[in-house]
């Protein structure tokens, strides 16, 4: 995080209220925090990695059924949500830049916008889930996916059992992602309060940077989920 480092460099001599006792200097504390966050994101990659593996294996085995199931979701909703998340990532970096350059209203405004985008994402997700629920595409006792043709093979129906595996993965993957969004919203509420109280200065805004890393990461996961879940075999 060079931009902030450059700003922070000249202030080391002053006593820093945010410095915890066991660190020698603020620099060390900030580096430790961001390093820790990156490692945590590494664990998140492996966490979702298990799901991606499951997805890949069954997509390979049951490609046609996955295509049929995927095509039953509105791709437009997924695309819109991708755009929403991308905008929220932009407002995150703007908030940090606002803190770095002491633009308080930019910082606070961007934080609020980020959260609004986050809520919009969850709202659209809710609409999507509602539709799936109404169509009985939620795995479980009332699941039904009968007589849905496989894309490109109008004479063949998708195997409901295999489509159910797709939907199980779809709900678990997007559900865990949404859970991460909710946690992110919690973090950003806290960041907003801190920002409002004036706790972030050009020298000290580590929590913003750490929270931002998390938010961008959740965005990256979605960047993969979108084509994998919404766009299987759409062209037929």
């Amino acid at each position, binding site marked *: 995080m060079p931009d902030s*480092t450059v700003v922070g460099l000249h202030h080391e001599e002053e006593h820093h209220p945010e410095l915890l006792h066991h660190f020698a200097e603020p620099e060390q504390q900030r580096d430790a925090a961001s390093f820790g966050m990156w490692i945590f994101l590494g664990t998140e990659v*492996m966490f979702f*990695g298990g799901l991606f*593996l499951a997805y890949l294996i069954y997509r390979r085995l049951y490609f046609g059924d996955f295509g049929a199931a995927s095509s039953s979701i509105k*791709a437009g909703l997924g695309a819109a949500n991708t755009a929403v998340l991308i905008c929220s990532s932009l407002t995150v970096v703007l908030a940090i830049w606002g803190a770095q350059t002491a633009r308080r209203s930019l910082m606070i405004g961007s934080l609020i916008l980020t959260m609004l985008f986050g809520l919009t994402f969850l709202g659209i997700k809710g609409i999507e889930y509602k539709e799936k629920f109404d169509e009985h595409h939620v795995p479980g006792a009332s699941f039904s996916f009968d007589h849905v043709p496989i894309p490109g093979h109008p004479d063949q129906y998708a195997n409901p059992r295999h489509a159910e595996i797709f939907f199980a993965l779809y709900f678990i993957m997007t559900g865990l992602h949404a859970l991460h969004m909710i946690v992110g919203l919690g973090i950003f509420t806290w960041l907003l309060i801190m920002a409002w109280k004036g706790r972030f200065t050009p020298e000290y805004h580590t929590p913003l940077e750490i929270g931002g890393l998390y938010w*961008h990461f959740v965005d990256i996961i979605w*960047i993969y989920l979108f*084509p994998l879940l919404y766009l299987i075999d759409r062209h037929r």
Partner: protein
Amino acid sequence: MSDHSKSSPLKTYFSVWIALLVGTFVTYEAAFIDLGRFNAVVALTIATIKALIVALFFMHLRHAHERLLKLVVIATIFFLFILIALSMADYATRT
């Protein structure tokens, strides 16, 4: 620490934002064109480019004065690759 005292990063941020939106649009449109087996390739390539620029520019991995952070990313991707590749080695060769 790469000292880049250029004016402000805003230009970068907004270009990245545009690029990400364009990438999303292209992904969406490409999915409806028949590219044979390359549909998935195109979608995943674009997704990877998008993920990369988010990491490099929004998460500031590009300027990270720490080579360490890059190491974390590379190591994680490596082990994710191991998980997927060795498992697939089983599935792909089952008789």
